[in-house]
Structure formats: C-alpha cells, structure tokens
C-alpha cells in the first residue's frame, strides 16, 4: 500500500525558493504569466536570446553545449565585464553559477497560467553584510515584464 501514500508536490519554483532562502546574497522574484508553462519555458530557456532581455546588466550571451543537461554560458556586460557560467538546464529549471554571480530560473503550472521565478545573487565574501539590501537584488536586476512580452509575441506567431 506504500505506493498509495500521498507524496508532496515540490515543483521547480518551490525548489528555487529553497535555493533563495538557503544561499546568502540572493534575491528571488516571482511573476505570473498568462500562458502554459511549456510555452513560457520554450521562450525562457533560449538563454542566448532571453538572458540579455531579462537581466539588465547582460549585453550579450553565448551558450555552448556540455554533457547532458550541462551547458556553459559566457555573458558580457555593458562595461565590458565578462562572466563564464556553469549551467544546468532542464524543463522548468535552470541554475547558473559563475565565479561571482548566481542566476536561477524556474517555471511551474499556476491556476492563472505559469508561475515563473527568477533568482539573482552575488557570490562574494561577506555578502551577508549587505543583508538589508539583498531583497532588492532580484527585482532590480531582472525585467520579467519582458518575458511576458516575449511569450505573448511567441503566442502570436503560433
């Protein structure tokens, strides 16, 4: 009968909340998008096109494939700064880590369409000293309204 015992449904956005709450120096933004999760993820997971749209400080991004779900992403900022990210990408979940930066994205079904989460963070010694300001990092660094726009445009093309 064990297989009939109820199992909690821990969706990818809840997992992103776990990461945000557990890693000092991160901020999480959640957004409801009026479109199915598969479609939202189809747009969001195109890192090369979408990351510069969503992250204010990214001017351009190039992605190279790695083994399995692993990718490598090179990002360039507007002031010429560069960052190399190790990436894990799968349906509904993306985690990215560079030497100094963290990014995460997740999507899960919601009664109104899709709940989309974006996590941004710094990997710096003593980052917890910035604690009172950390909740501003995620919302200030990302433009999730643009994702909604891009998803609607994608819907219009279908």
């Amino acid at each position, binding site marked *: 009968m*064990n297989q009939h015992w*109820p199992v909690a*449904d821990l*969706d990818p956005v809840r*997992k992103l909340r*776990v990461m945000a709450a557990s890693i000092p120096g991160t901020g999480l933004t959640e957004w409801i998008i009026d479109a199915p999760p598969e479609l939202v993820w189809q747009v969001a997971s195109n890192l090369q096109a979408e990351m510069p749209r969503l992250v204010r400080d990214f001017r351009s991004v190039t992605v190279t494939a790695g083994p399995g779900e692993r990718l490598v992403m090179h990002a360039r900022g507007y002031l010429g700064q560069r960052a190399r990210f190790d990436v894990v990408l799968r349906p509904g979940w993306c*985690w990215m880590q560079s030497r100094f930066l963290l990014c995460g994205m997740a999507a899960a079904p919601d009664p109104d369409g899709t709940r989309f989460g974006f996590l941004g963070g710094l990997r710096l010694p003593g980052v917890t000293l910035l604690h009172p300001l950390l909740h501003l990092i995620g919302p200030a660094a990302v433009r999730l309204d643009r994702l909604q726009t891009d998803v609607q445009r994608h819907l219009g093309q279908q």
Partner: protein
Amino acid sequence: MNPIDAGEHPATAGLPGLVRAAQDGDSMAMAELLDVLAPYVARLCGPIALGDGADAAQEALIAVFTQIGQLREPAALFGWVRAIAIREAVRVARKAHRAAPAELRDVPARGDPQLASEVRDVLGRLAPHHRAILVLRDLEGLDEQTVSDILAVSTGTAKSRLHRARRRFRQEWDR
C-alpha cells in the same frame, strides 16, 4: 510494506563529495543535492502534512540547506534529513489546524476506485503525530529506538503511539 532505507536512494555514490561541496558554498552541488533530496522529503512530508505537504517539504528543505554546515558526517545525510522533514511536516500540519480529525461525512464511499485517494482520506482523519509515526515505522521501516529518538519521546511512548495510530488507521479504513 517495504521499508525505505538510505541504501536504496539513488545517486548516493558521489554523495559525500556533493555534501562537502555544498557545505563549501558551491551552489551547483547544492542544486544537485536538492535534486537528490527533494523526492525523499516529498515522500516523507506528503502523508503527514497532506494538503500542506508542498509547504512542509519546502520548509524542511530550507531547514536542511541552511543547516547543512552542521552535518559532520555525510553518510548520516538521509537520517539527518529525515528527522528535519518529520519535524517540519508535523509543525506545518499542526499550524494548519489539521490536528482535529476530519468529519465523518468526509469518509469516502467503500469501493472507491481511487485507492491512493482513500489512503489520503484515512490519513487525513489521524492526528499529525500519528501520521508521523506511521510514516517512520510503516513507510520508512525504522525500529522503535530510532523512531523514539527522531520524535524525542520514550520508546514506551513511541510504542503506545504506534499502537493507537495503527488501530485508528484500521478503524477508519474499515468504515
């Protein structure tokens, strides 16, 4: 009922290294460890917190990862996680005012084809601490001493609580 023990969990081969890396602040390792632990925690929290199982699992995993630095022996990971998950699940279930048994009018009709739904409904009529001991003994297959340690009660209390929980489960199941 088949007990689940740490040896049956997948992806445990490289676990010590993964735990150490997560403790050192490698978020890639932490995300990978989350993939390993999430299904286990979801299985423990579901039968105890029921409708609030996802909240309980989320809270349990936050507690696990904020305290991961305190885990000295990676081999003890699953036992350590289990204790946190059970504690959080009972706490969330009690907070959600689910301690009171459900009304009898909620009892499903006999012959309901959805057995999983029946199990869930029967569990819903038990108190959170009774669900917790059923999960530990009958789902996880732990011995009385380990269960009493996790629940911070004497072995006598654990024994009598298990007896009452099983009797209550059978009574509700046979209705």
